[in-house]
């Protein structure tokens, strides 16, 4: 095994046009270690953030825990190494029945910002995205047209979206169309 064989990373957004407007921007979230944690919601504590309530996300430092179901939490550790996080967590969770599965590369994170962010999402997501119905801190698994996404509102006009990698060009293409479709709104 020689040094030259160290593989390099190429994300699915490589070379893809990301829609941008005065009141909307779409940027990739940083690479992150991601896990689905099943079976033991309280185990989120071992990761850092408090166990999230139903349809809510919690954070500690950069680490995020998103409630996706009664026994399912999505853990996101931006910039961290998946192997190291997994080792750390498995050590802390030893003896407690659970499933911790690395999905760092299964999906990507996108950050949607601006006054039109919710409007563009509403092109494919049927949920009520008004602040009164989908407040800051809310997170859910939902759909965007024919793609499944995880939607997390970080600020009034800032959403974090997780999408499986092969669906990302479809999602981004539709968000770009939605941005143009929102002309004048």
């Amino acid at each position, binding site marked *: 095994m020689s040094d030259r*064989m160290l593989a390099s*990373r190429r994300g699915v957004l490589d070379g893809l046009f990301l829609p941008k407007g005065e009141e909307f921007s779409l940027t990739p979230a940083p690479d992150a270690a991601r896990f689905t944690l*099943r079976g033991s919601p309280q185990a989120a504590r071992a990761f850092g953030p408090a166990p999230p309530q139903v349809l809510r996300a919690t954070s500690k430092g950069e680490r995020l825990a998103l409630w996706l179901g009664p*026994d399912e939490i999505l853990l996101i550790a931006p910039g961290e190494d998946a192997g190291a996080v997994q080792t750390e967590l498995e050590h802390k969770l030893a003896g407690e029945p659970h499933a911790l599965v690395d*999905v760092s*590369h*299964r999906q990507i994170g996108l950050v949607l910002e601006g006054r039109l962010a919710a409007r563009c999402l509403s*092109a494919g997501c049927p949920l009520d995205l008004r602040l009164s119905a989908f407040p800051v801190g809310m997170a859910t698994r939902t759909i965007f047209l024919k793609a499944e996404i995880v939607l997390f509102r970080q600020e009034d006009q800032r959403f974090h979206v997780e999408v499986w990698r092969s669906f990302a060009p479809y999602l981004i293409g539709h968000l770009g169309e939605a941005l143009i*479709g929102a002309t004048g709104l």
Partner: protein
Amino acid sequence: MSEAFRLPGADGCPIRFVFDGMPYQGREGDTLASALLANGVHLVGRSYKYHRPRGILTAGAEEPNALVAMMRGPGRMTPNLRATQIEIFDGLEVRSQNAWPSLALDAGAINDIAGKFFSAGFYYKTFMGPKVAGSGLWTRVFEPIVRQAAGLGARTSEPDPDRYAQFHEHCDVLICGGGPAGIAAALAAGASGKDVVLCDEQAAFGGGLLHETRATIDGKPTRQWLAEALAALRAMPNVRLMPRTQAFGYYAQNFIALSERVADHLATDHPVRERLWQVRAKEVVIATGAIERPLVFSGNDRPGVMLAEAARIYLNRYGVKVGTRVVLVTAHDSAYRAALDLKAAGVTIAAIADLRSDPAGELVEAARAAGLPLIADARVAGTKGRLRVSKVGIAAGVGATRWIGCDCLLMSGGWTPSVHLYSQSRGKVVWHEDRQMFLPGASVQAERSAGACKGTFALATVLAEGQQAGAAAAGTSSPSITYVVAGDPPQSGGHLGRVKAADGASGKAFVDFQNDVKADDIDLAVQEGMRSIEHVKRYTTTGMATDQGKTSNLNALAIAAEKLGKSVPEVGLTTFRQPYTPVSFGAFAGANRGELFDPLRRTPTHAWAEESGAVFEDFGLWKRARYFPRAGEDMHAAVHRECTQARKSAGVFDASTLGKIEVVGPDSAAFLEMLYTNPWAKLEPGRCRYGLMLNEAGFVMDDGVIARLAADRFHVTTTTGGAPRVLHHMEDYLQTEFPDLRVWLTSTTEQWAVIAVQGPKAREIVAPLVEGFDIAHEAMPHMSIREGRVCGIPARVMRVSFTGELGYEINVPADFGRSVWEAVWAEGRKHDAVAYGTEAMHVMRAEKGHIIVGQETDGTVTPDDLCLGWAIGKAKKDFIGKRSLVRPDMVAPGRKQLVGLLTVNPETVLEEGAQITATATPKVGEAAQGHVTSAYDSPALGRSIALALVADGRKRKGQTLHVPMPGGAIAVTVVDPVFFDPKGDRLNV
């Protein structure tokens, strides 16, 4: 001719447009209808069936006649638009429809003369009836002619270059209709602070207020009050005004669909043509107003015959006189307002013919005082004039008919509340005999009607009702504002069905102008046995299609009721269907077309394959490299080379699309025991096993290699197409049948890029890239898995084979897929390896007799049928499908079993799906013995091969069977399905 019918002092900017090739001038704010009328043009189209000349009947969305095609360049022709809704702009080009060679001289008008052959039910009687004129003549000759002659506008065949957007919207209160009721509702609901959306199909809000010149609200002229009300609404940040937006459908759970015309009124380019809004409203206010009803008398469809209020709208709102000499036929007081306004504008009122014997009331008296000639107890004989009405025959009672000259005939049969949206919300309309109206009954959804659509016509009451509805929808108490209205005298009257005919009456009396349905057609339908209005509708086509009976429903109903001798509610009312007005297909499609129609899933190494010239094929939503042709190669040559070289040295294959599910938890082995036929409890960590999944009926539903990573962790692979189905199936059973098992499922299909290296040189290619484990034969036997690093990246490497060759599948995190692939490829090049695609993969697996789920299986195939009985754990107590495997049918002789077929001529490749018979020329009706499931030219065997399912196939090895084809039966010999390396020597190296 330049706006000869425009009132002096029209202040809008002049606008030039073209209708049927002729340039015209209109004014800013005009609709096409008002601009044409300003130029004295009434003739705008030919009717659906009889090709009768037709004019502009209404001034709104209910227009049944004036349907035109708007030309906006290639792919941008829109047929069947209502001239009363098209806003004109500089350069607008519009054409009439259904007329050839020209509107004034239309060849199809022969249908009008031949009208008696086109009576109600014509379609059914001819297309489905006896062979009147000899066999096939109708279908070959007449039907195409009739189809060409009938109908409305033509469609365009070019792709639509416009963009259509779709958005979901949520609000607390949605108000459909921006007339006085809707505006009062919006003011009241807006004051609550809740999110309010007010939509109206017109460019301007105000509805009837836009042409009301007589009434005042709170002492202000209506238009001033309107301007102030709209300014107040615009100042409310929680109120959203949506003009040019038609609420066209009311669906379940207060889901209302709106269609917004964004660009059709603009002379300049705009990035969006239309927007479709899917609104979920907590509460809805329906304020859709009422539609004036035509009167049914002979010749009521001639150009120049209009509804009375439409004439008033054109006059007061657009400054356009509909004629110079007007006759009105009415049964309702509201037409007198039109007469008085027209008179005041200098139009001669030749007569007001009132069907009522004793018309009275404030408006009638005003008309008398103004000296307008009034004929009471009027009857109508008909109208004259070829392309424009010139005379109308009127009689007072049983008196003689007098033909009165006119260039415009206005009619009013009263008002029909627009209950379409209420009806679509599943509410049941209630017949009010005293008012001769269907009005909304109890609410089924969270909605309430207000104003004319609820049968309320007095402006003061309309405003009060709107206000109450808005407040109720917003959940606040009704505000104390009382709107004071003056100059809005009470109105009454109305008429349903036929108008009494005067002496000498003749000619067609139309009920449904758009579908060319006459009063006689309704009679005929009843006479021919139709009893329900739903049957009358279908038989005559009245109230069908895009019109949905807006102007015709009640007249048709009344005529049917009279003929049947029943009351109107006894005959019933047809369903109001969505959409209220037609919606562009583009709006429904939105951005979901071309590349964005479906998610187009690409693997991490897709770009490499593309750069290497791969030809792709669709696998569900996935794009997979099918083969990698070199210069001059066709598919056959490329696949032949890929197979040959893979077996000679090695081939590299992208297997990333394989479904992958990580099954984790202390009970994961127990769970897999139930889900797969095979035994898993004793599979050691580090080892793999082929797994077979059955449905409850015992039939094969999926297969794949399953690797045990640890006591409590399995890496399960599924077929590419089966991945979502298998995960769903597993989750379903886990939650409903085995909830006590502590095991959890996570899809990891996209976590891993999978690079398969297959061939005698596979180990030499993979070995230099691997660290942390030994891939030698003894250290890592066939069907094992190791975790370590490949190219420095954490990886899972499985020793598996789908080709029959020594093989490894390298799983690396997807972002590293491309880079690791390139490293593998660089090693492979040293050994003359090839990249191969799905086609070569299929050939090589068929040479080994490996099945593909969905190709060798079709949902009726058991493990034993596939010679996979060995994959069933004999000692297992249970697994899904186990009980079904011993059903009598499943063990009966004669089941189709997997076999190989060799054609007598080695060059002949069978057709997949072809039937197999015992004899070369089977008798008609003789059942087939089976069918071909896979067939290829096999490079390894140097001849064609095929897999097939054949009844009792295993017993028939050596027999000759036949595959009948159009060119003659092909003789085949039944053989074992494993064609190549049956002992598996090539695997164990």
